[in-house]
């Protein structure tokens, strides 16, 4: 493989030990996936931030690297295992908090922007059309590829960090036009209204076609919140990193011949599979992290009410700052709901604390069951609020 002078220097260790290791990893991946060269990336999103998932090994490794690692491009972080400011009120132990803070400190030392959100595109890491990026976090990868027309493979936490430290990624997979074409038409024959409906659509498609790139037809309109939910769910259940949606997404694609249908029955089946028989003692909104409009909606439906169950809203800290300014935070907190910034129900250590979780997110149902052993129920925001008031 042809390397530039700078890449060779990194490989020889002239830019430090961390950059050398990062370059070794990218070249090994390039080799495995038959990439002909490395290409520059404009931004990086790093997953694998929660100490819950990293463990001591991950923490030690990050601290080792931080001795001489420096990021070369705009790099943002996925949610951590706790709210970095308000962790005590959310019931996180002191020993966990100390380890989690060390993880964040190691990233900060490397020059990573300490955003801690799965929706970096809402708070300033917004890739443009055709821009090459190296992102992990499957929902954000799917959003960047599909909705924005940027180009990234599904990176792992470490391969994305390697890209941050070198500014490069191997050119293969979704960086190339030929691999971004739809292979199957998915004709949607169902009326979709809520964020939960779009989450169910993602599961129905993922279950039906796996990670084949679909051209989705029959969805007339969809807003940001519905689409970020769809991206999260289609990536969770199908492993999909890119989809096309007629009239809505910007990428060009050839029109495939093969066609499958998603009916009302498929959507209902998906929802049924995301609903266990259970009492609810935990309501969680914000997977992916809540947008400004969602916080405004939540404030509207919670105004003057009092929740009687644990009610969490996960969002990026900058989004909450705007909610503070708008008075949403006051309304929401007066109603007894809690903000969980920098973190979420999928990566926080919540096992054993709750029995049944109700959420408007299909992805949260999957991770609620898997990581935290909850029973789950998918519902609209309004239904979640009604449940919380019981």
């Amino acid at each position, binding site marked *: 493989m042809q390397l530039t002078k700078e890449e060779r220097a990194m490989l020889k260790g002239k830019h430090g030990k961390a950059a050398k290791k990062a370059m070794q990893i990218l070249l090994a991946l390039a080799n495995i996936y038959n990439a002909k060269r490395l290409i520059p990336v404009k931004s990086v999103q790093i997953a694998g931030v929660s100490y819950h998932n990293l463990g001591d*090994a991950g923490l030690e490794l990050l601290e080792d690297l931080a001795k001489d690692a420096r990021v070369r491009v705009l790099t943002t972080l996925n949610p951590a295992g706790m709210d970095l400011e308000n962790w005590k009120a959310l019931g996180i132990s002191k020993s966990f908090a100390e380890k989690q803070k060390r993880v964040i400190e190691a990233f900060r030392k490397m020059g990573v922007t300490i955003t801690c959100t799965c929706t970096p595109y809402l708070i300033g890491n917004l890739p443009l059309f055709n821009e090459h990026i190296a992102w992990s976090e499957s929902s954000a990868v799917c959003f960047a590829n599909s909705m924005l027309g940027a180009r990234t493979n599904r990176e*792992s936490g470490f391969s994305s960090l390697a890209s941050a430290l070198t500014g490069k990624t191997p050119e293969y997979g979704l960086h190339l036009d030929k691999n971004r074409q739809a292979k199957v038409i998915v004709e949607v024959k169902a009326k979709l209204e809520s964020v939960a409906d779009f989450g169910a659509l993602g599961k129905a498609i993922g279950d039906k076609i796996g990670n084949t790139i679909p051209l989705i037809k029959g969805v007339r309109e969809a807003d940001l919140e519905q689409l970020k939910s769809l991206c999260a769910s289609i990536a969770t259940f199908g492993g999909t990193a890119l989809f096309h949606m007629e009239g809505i997404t910007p990428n060009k694609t050839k029109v495939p011949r093969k066609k499958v249908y998603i009916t009302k029955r498929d959507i209902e089946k998906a929802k049924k599979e995301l609903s266990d028989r259970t009492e609810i003692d935990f309501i969680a909104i914000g997977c992916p992290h809540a947008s400004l409009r969602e916080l405004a909606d939540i404030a509207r439906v919670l105004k003057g009410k009092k929740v009687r169950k644990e009610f969490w809203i996960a969002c990026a800290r900058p989004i909450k700052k705007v909610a503070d300014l708008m008075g949403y935070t006051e309304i929401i907190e007066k109603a007894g709901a809690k903000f969980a910034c920098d973190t979420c129900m999928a990566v926080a250590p919540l096992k054993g604390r709750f029995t049944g979780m109700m959420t408007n997110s299909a992805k949260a149902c999957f991770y609620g069951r898997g990581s935290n052993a909850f029973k789950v129920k998918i519902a609209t925001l309004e239904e979640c609020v009604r449940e919380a008031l019981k």
Partner: protein
Amino acid sequence: MILRGRKIFSGKVSGMALVSKKPISFYGGVDPKTGIVGEKGHPLEGKCIAGKILIFPSGKGSTVGSYTIYRLKKNGKAPRAMVLKECEAIVAVGAILAEIPCIDKIKIEKIKDGSTIEVNADKAEVRI
């Protein structure tokens, strides 16, 4: 006999082969403190990979597995080398982080469990 493959991470070692016919999930499948395979029903269940030359078709499971390989090394419980049929990203990243000699594209069915073999990753060779 010499088997030739592709270098993932360099180094030259020899030792006893521990052969798995099934892929290995390092995250959740191998205890990073003991090096013992814990995955239920896995052909290596209950066996220790520490100090062995680990022969397996490929990695599987969560990408956090790369960190597990690194952690095994830190605890002195890592395999001496890894030889695979097809190395994917999890094992490749783990091998490089932990600096464990690693080769893939090897006809692993030719290697006998318990035999002493030599791995020369720089030449991408396994001598059996």
